[in-house]
C-alpha cells in the first residue's frame, strides 16, 4: 500500500492535522487509529470546558471530538481504526496491524499524532503494598466514563495534574469521598480554573508540598501515609499521618508517547520527551512531522488542534514541493523558561506567523517573556504570573519572521518586569 500522507493517531491532533492537510490540497491521506473510533482521549473526557478558543463555546470532550470527526467525514478522509502501528522505519514504511493482518504502507510524509501516556507508580517510587486500587487518573477516568464502573469510594489523589483534578470532581459526583489531593510541589501543575471548579467548589483539600510515602493494604488499598516534604522534596516523617481510603489515583505527569518516533530514528528532546521540530513541525527525519501531546504535553486541546492544523498544512506543502530546509536558527530556552517548541526555525521558509510554545520551570510574578535574536530583543510580552501548569505562547509576526530566518540564535527567556 502507498499513501502520500499517513497520520498516526486519530485523536484531536491527528484529526486536526488531517483536516488541514486536506484543505491544503492533499487528498491521498490515511488516519491510523488503534481504538475502534476516532477522538482519542477526548472520548473519556466527558466534562466540559473544551473548545473555548476553537469554537467559542464550551463543549465536552466527545462533542469537541465529534466536531472534528464530522469535518473528517465531510472530506471523506479514511480512518483505519482498531489498527496499531508497530513501527515507522527510516524509509517511512509504516508497519501496522489489525484483525485483517499486517499492513505495510509506504508514505511520502508521516505525522506522528500519538498523544501521551501517564507516568506510572513505579516512576515515582511510592513504597508499600502492590495491591488493587492504585490507578493512574486516566485509567480511572476510562473505567468510569467509558466502561461505566466505579473504581473507588474513598480516594486520595497524588498529584494535581488536570486529569487528577477533574477526577476528584467526577468521583465526588458519583458519591465517592475524595479525602485529599496531595501535591509534591508548592504549586499545582494543573490549570487554576480546575483547582477552583474541581476542588474548591467541593471542599476537597489540596495539600501542597506533601506526598504519599506509603500505600497500605493486602488485597485492596486500606490506607495511605502522607507527609509534608522539605525544600529538597524529601518527606518530613514527623509530619506523617495516615488517611483511610480504598483507592489511590496518580496524576503525576504525562509523557509524550514516542516509541514509534524512536523506530523512525527521530531525535527526541530530553526536556519535552517529544521530537525536536522546526517551525513546520518537521522532526529531524525528513518528511516526519509531530504535533499535539506526542510533541509536548499541552493543557488545552484547542492549542493541540491549532498546532496540529499547522503540522497538517505543512506536511501537505512538503509533499507538494518536496522541499525542506537544511539550515536552521536555534531556538533556545533560558532564564526560567524550561523549553520552547519549535526548537529550531528553518532559514528558508514563508513569512508566516510562527508561534513559540513554552513552559516555565517555576511560578514567576511580574515578568516579561522575551525573545532575543542574536542578543537583540525582537518581541516581548508582559505577564502578571506564569506557572509550570499553563503553557505560554509568544508569537512571531510575519513582519519579523524573515529577520528571524536570517539570524543564528533565538533565545527565549524570562525577565523581571521593571516597575
Amino acid at each position, binding site marked *: 500500500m502507498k499513501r502520500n500522507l499517513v497520520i498516526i493517531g486519530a485523536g484531536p491532533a491527528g484529526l486536526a492535522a488531517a483536516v488541514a492537510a486536506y484543505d491544503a490540497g492533499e487528498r491521498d491521506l490515511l488516519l491510523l487509529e*488503534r481504538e475502534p473510533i476516532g477522538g482519542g482521549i477526548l472520548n473519556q473526557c466527558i466534562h466540559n470546558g473544551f473548545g473555548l478558543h476553537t469554537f467559542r463555546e464550551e463543549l465536552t470532550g466527545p462533542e469537541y471530538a465529534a466536531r472534528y470527526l464530522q469535518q473528517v467525514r465531510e472530506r471523506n478522509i479514511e480512518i483505519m481504526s*482498531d489498527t*496499531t502501528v*508497530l513501527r515507522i522505519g527510516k524509509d517511512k514504511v509504516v*508497519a501496522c*496491524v*489489525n*484483525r*485483517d*493482518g*499486517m499492513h*505495510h504502507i509506504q508514505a511520502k510524509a508521516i505525522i506522528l499524532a500519538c498523544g501521551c*501516556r*501517564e507516568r*506510572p*507508580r*513505579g*516512576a515515582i*517510587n511510592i*513504597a*508499600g*503494598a*502492590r*495491591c*488493587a486500587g492504585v*490507578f*493512574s487518573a*486516566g*485509567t480511572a477516568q*476510562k*473505567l*468510569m466514563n*467509558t*466502561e*461505566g*464502573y*466505579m*473504581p*473507588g*469510594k474513598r480516594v486520595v489523589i497524588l498529584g494535581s495534574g488536570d486529569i487528577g483534578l477533574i477526577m476528584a470532581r467526577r468521583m465526588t459526583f*458519583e458519591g465517592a469521598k475524595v479525602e485529599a489531593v496531595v501535591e509534591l510541589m508548592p504549586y499545582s501543575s494543573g490549570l487554576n480554573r480546575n483547582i477552583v471548579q474541581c476542588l474548591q467548589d467541593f471542599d476537597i483539600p489540596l495539600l501542597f508540598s506533601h506526598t504519599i*510515602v*506509603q500505600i*497500605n493494604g*493486602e*488485597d*485492596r488499598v486500606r490506607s495511605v501515609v502522607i507527609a509534608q516534604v522539605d525544600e529538597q522534596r524529601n518527606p518530613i516523617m514527623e509530619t506523617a499521618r495516615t488517611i483511610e481510603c480504598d483507592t489511590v489515583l496518580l496524576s503525576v505527569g504525562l509523557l509524550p508517547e514516542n*516509541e514509534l518516533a524512536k523506530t523512525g530514528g527521530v531525535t527526541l528532546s530530553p526536556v519535552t520527551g517529544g521530537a525536536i521540530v522546526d517551525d513546520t513541525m518537521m522532526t529531524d527525519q525528513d518528511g516526519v512531522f509531530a504535533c499535539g501531546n506526542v510533541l509536548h504535553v499541552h493543557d488545552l486541546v484547542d492549542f493541540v488542534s491549532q498546532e496540529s492544523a499547522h503540522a497538517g498544512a505543512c506536511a501537505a506543502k512538503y509533499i507538494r514541493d518536496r522541499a525542506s530546509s537544511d539550515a536552521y536558527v536555534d531556538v533556545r530556552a533560558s532564564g526560567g523558561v524550561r523549553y520552547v517548541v519549535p526548537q529550531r526555525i528553518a532559514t528558508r521558509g514563508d513569512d508566516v506567523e510562527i508561534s513559540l510554545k513554552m513552559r516555565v520551570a517555576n511560578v514567576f510574578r511580574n515578568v516579561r517573556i522575551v525573545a532575543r535574536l542574536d542578543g537583540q530583543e525582537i518581541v516581548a510580552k508582559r505577564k502578571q504570573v506564569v506557572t509550570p501548569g499553563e503553557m505560554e505562547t509568544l508569537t512571531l509576526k510575519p513582519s519579523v519572521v524573515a529577520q528571524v530566518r536570517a539570524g543564528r540564535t533565538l533565545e527565549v527567556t524570562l525577565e523581571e518586569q521593571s516597575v
Partner: protein
Amino acid sequence: MRKIVIVGAGVIGCGVARELSRYRADIVVLERENDISCGTSKANSGIVHAGFDAHTGSNKAKFNVAGNAMFDALAKELDFPFRRNGAFVLCFDDSQTDRLRALYDQGIGNGVTELRILDGDEARRMSPNLSDRVVAALYAPTSGIVSPYEMTVAYAENAARNGVRFRRNCEVTAIRAREGGWNVTAGGEEFFADVVINCAGVYADTVHRMASDEPLQVVARKGEYVLLDKECGGLTDQTLFQLPTHMGKGILIAPTTHGNILVGPTATDVEDKRDVDTTPEGLRTVIDKARLSVPQLPTRSIITQFSGLRAHCDRNDFVIGWAREGFYDVAGIESPGLTASPAIATHVAQDVARKLDLQTDDAFVAERRAIPCFARLDDRARAELIASDPAYGQIVCRCETVTEGEIVESIRRPVGAVDLDGVKRRTRAGMGRCQSGFCTARILQILARELGTDVADVTKKGGDSRIVFGRLDK
C-alpha cells in the same frame, strides 16, 4: 491408582507435579493463592546460577550444578524464556581478591565448568558500563537468566496436560494420618493421599508441622527489587553480582529474558509471610549498592518496584526427603532454588515413584508450546498467526505489544489465568512502561467475557482485590 497430594504450586510444586506426571498416579496440586506462581516463584532474581556460591557437598551445591545443566533441554522442551548470558562476581578491593579466588575454588569443587578470574580491565571490555572501581571479577559463562513465572506456568501446563489436577484457592488447613496414608483438609474439602509432598515455600514449616513433630523453621526473607525500562536493556548483558563487602551482601544487576534490567534484592527477615511491601529504605539500598557496580545506573528509567520472599530454612540448606512415612518435605528452597528446581523435581519424583512403586505412563507428552508471543515474531509469522485467528491482530497492551489472542489463550489454557496478575505473568500484558495504564480496562473485559463473569468481579490477584466497585448506575 496411588494418590499423591502436592502442597504448593510454585516452581517446585509444579516441577514435581510435572515430573511425577511421567508415572501412572492420581496427582493433585493444592494452592492457597488465586493462581499458581504467586509466592517466591513470581518475585525473584530469575537467575540460573552457575553453582559456585554454595558450600561443596551441600544440597544447594549438588542440586544447583545439576539443575543448571538441565536448563537448555528443559527450556526447549517446555518452551519458556531462558538464556545463558554469563555472570560476573565483581571485586572492588585488591585486599579481597583472595575471596574471589576462594569462590572460584569452591565453584571448581562443586563441578562448575568454564570459570575464569579476570582483571578489572578484562571485565570492563566485556561489560563496558562496569565501574572503574572493579579490580577483578570471577566470570561464569554457564550462568543464565530465566523467566521464573513463565517456567512455573510451563511446568504446570505440561503437568495438567499429563493429567495432574490443580486446585487453586485451596489452602491446606489440616493433615491427619489415617491407615495407609493421609487425609488432607483443604479449601473445605478432604483429599486422601498415599503420599503428601510439601512444596509450600515460606509456609513449608506450617505444613510440615501438620504431619511431623520434627522441628523445622522457615523464615520469610524479603528481597526488594526495582525494574528498569527496556530502553536501558543495554546496560549490561551479563548478570553482575558483587563480592560481599563490609556493607554486607551485594546487590545484583541482571538483564531479564524480556530485555528489562532487574536490580536487587535486599535481604530483610519479616514476621508476616504476606508482607511483600516495598520500602523507601529498601529502594535506596538497592540503588546505592547497585551503583557500586554500574555508577550511571539510570534511576529515572525505573518502571516498577516489587519484593518477594525467600523461604530461608534454619537448617541453612535445602531440606529434601521423607519427614516421615508418606510425607515428603521439599523445604527451605531459597536461592539457588530456581536453578535447582529441575534437578529437585526429578529427584523428588524418582524418590516418590520408587516408594509407591509407580509405573511409567506411556501416554506422557514431554513437550509443551508457549503461547505465541506476537512481539517476538517477524511480520510474516505475525500475518500467519492473524490469519489463523484474527484476535492476534488486535493489540491490547501497547507497551509490550500483547494481542487479544495471547490474552484469550492465557485464560483458556489448562491452569489458565483467572485474574489480571495471572494474565500479566503469562503474556506480559501490563508489564511495560505504562504499567497497565492503558490496557487494564480492556483486559478486565476480556477476563470477564472468558470467565463468564462481570467486570466488577474480576480481581487483580483474587480475594478482595477487585478492580472496580460495581456499575455506576447501581
